[in-house]
């Protein structure tokens, strides 16, 4: 009995190790900390990047910046705003940041049987909304847009907020699971759900300027490869992947 259990356990472990074997990575990988909203575009770019293997860490930009302040050293930091890399640069923790992409804030709703079809619906009592938490860029863009609705309307929309999610992954999950009627996302996140969600465009008067900043981390283990990675996002395969995912060229 005990022998059989040991055999089963060994079989499971062997399979698991074999399954992970190929992904075991060494110290030579380029490590890129990037905003959750860049997941699809940068993963695709990473596969075609000719400067070596790339290891990505996707999370809320604010979490990644906090890690860098706490002493974590990826090679590259790509943020969904410009203020986080700017502040890290002022603190001497990253090199001079450059803007490499733009994006658009939209209202995201389930593709089928959506309860919300306009901005006015967001203010109706009973509508449930998910937004990014205040600290993460998607959350501050969202608050800026809602603020521009003006006094009572923006208060009515904010009163319908049911969850402050730490990054866009959480927002997409809440929307695709039908936990909320609507949420504020980047248009690229909606595209990435391949049809599960639908975007409602914001009028220009509400649209905040969404700009993505990137910087090489001070004391990066692979500064040369990191520079090449950044350069490819400005002009090259990375830029192509960003456009394919629906990102705008850097706003001027």
């Amino acid at each position, binding site marked *: 009995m005990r022998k059989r259990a040991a055999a089963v356990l060994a079989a499971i472990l062997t399979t698991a190790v074999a399954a992970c074997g190929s992904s075991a990575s060494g110290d030579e990988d380029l490590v890129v900390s990037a905003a959750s909203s860049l997941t699809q575009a940068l993963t695709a770019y990473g596969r075609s990047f000719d400067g070596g293997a790339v290891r990505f860490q996707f999370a809320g930009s604010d979490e990644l910046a906090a890690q860098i302040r706490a002493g974590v050293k990826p090679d590259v930091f790509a943020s969904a705003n410009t203020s986080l890399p700017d502040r890290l640069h002022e603190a001497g923790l990253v090199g001079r940041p450059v803007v490499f992409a733009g994006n658009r804030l939209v209202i995201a709703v389930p593709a089928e049987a959506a309860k919300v079809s306009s901005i006015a619906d967001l203010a109706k009592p009973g509508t449930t909304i998910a937004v990014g938490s205040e600290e993460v860029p998607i959350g501050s863009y969202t608050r800026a847009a809602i603020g521009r609705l003006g006094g009572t309307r923006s208060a009515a929309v904010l009163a319908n907020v049911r969850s402050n999610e730490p990054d866009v992954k959480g927002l997409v999950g809440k929307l695709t*699971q039908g936990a909320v009627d609507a949420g504020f996302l980047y248009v690229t996140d909606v595209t990435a759900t391949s049809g599960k969600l639908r975007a409602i465009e914001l009028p220009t008067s509400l649209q905040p300027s969404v700009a993505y900043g990137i910087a090489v981390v001070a004391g990066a283990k692979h500064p040369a490869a990191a520079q090449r990675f950044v350069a490819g996002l400005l002009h090259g395969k990375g830029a192509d992947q960003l456009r394919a995912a629906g990102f705008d060229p850097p706003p001027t």
Partner: protein
Amino acid sequence: MSRPGWFGALLALALAAALTFLTLPVLAIFIHSSPRELLESLGDPSARDALRLSIATTTVAIAVIVLVGTPAAYLLATRAFRGRALVVTLVELPLVLPPAVAGIGLLAALGPNGLLGDALDDAGLELVLQTAGVVVALIFVAAPFHLRAAQAAFGAVDPRWIEASRTLGAGEARTFARVAVPAALPGLGAGLALAWGRALGEFGATLMFAGSFRGITQTAPLAIYAEFAVDFDGALALSAVLVAISAALLLSTKLLARDALARA
């Protein structure tokens, strides 16, 4: 050197390594934040809301776990039936589930698009993004801790006591309440403390199933995570408070159970 001496030294070394490794992060939290910072962090209204919500939701979850879990564990510990081992494994499964899996599972089962989504909706029950959803997530991840400990505690009660109680004419329910529960109390208390600690620390399943909203679903661990990005010191201070509360719970439950046993 005699063999027990050599082995004894090895045991002591292993314990020293375990103790150092397991206490170092907790120690670091307290070294980082002075008592004054701790008090100041409690002055932050969002931190107070989070702690209040954590205490309220874990209390309700633990009450449900104890009321339902204790008799269920008694049955598992005292009756032999076909498929018992399978049932035990199934109810203990959440112990080894990653919190993210627990969150996805809860959404797939009880979310608006989940298995029971329509049924819940018809009954007018809303769980997702509600305080009730937090309680459901806490019960799911914490109940197995109590079930497991309670089963072991009931299993260790001398069957002759139970037999004697029945022979003396006490009914099944009376035997459970007057003999089995008092005798198993220290083990039940330990299980309760573990389940409570696990519930207080719950993060992933809560975030995925119940979301994060101040005063409604943002428990202390979620507030720590939100704070971490903007104010590392504030997050540390709130962490320290949570550690202190958890430690106090663990200690007082153990002491209570010991006292109860001494009186019994």
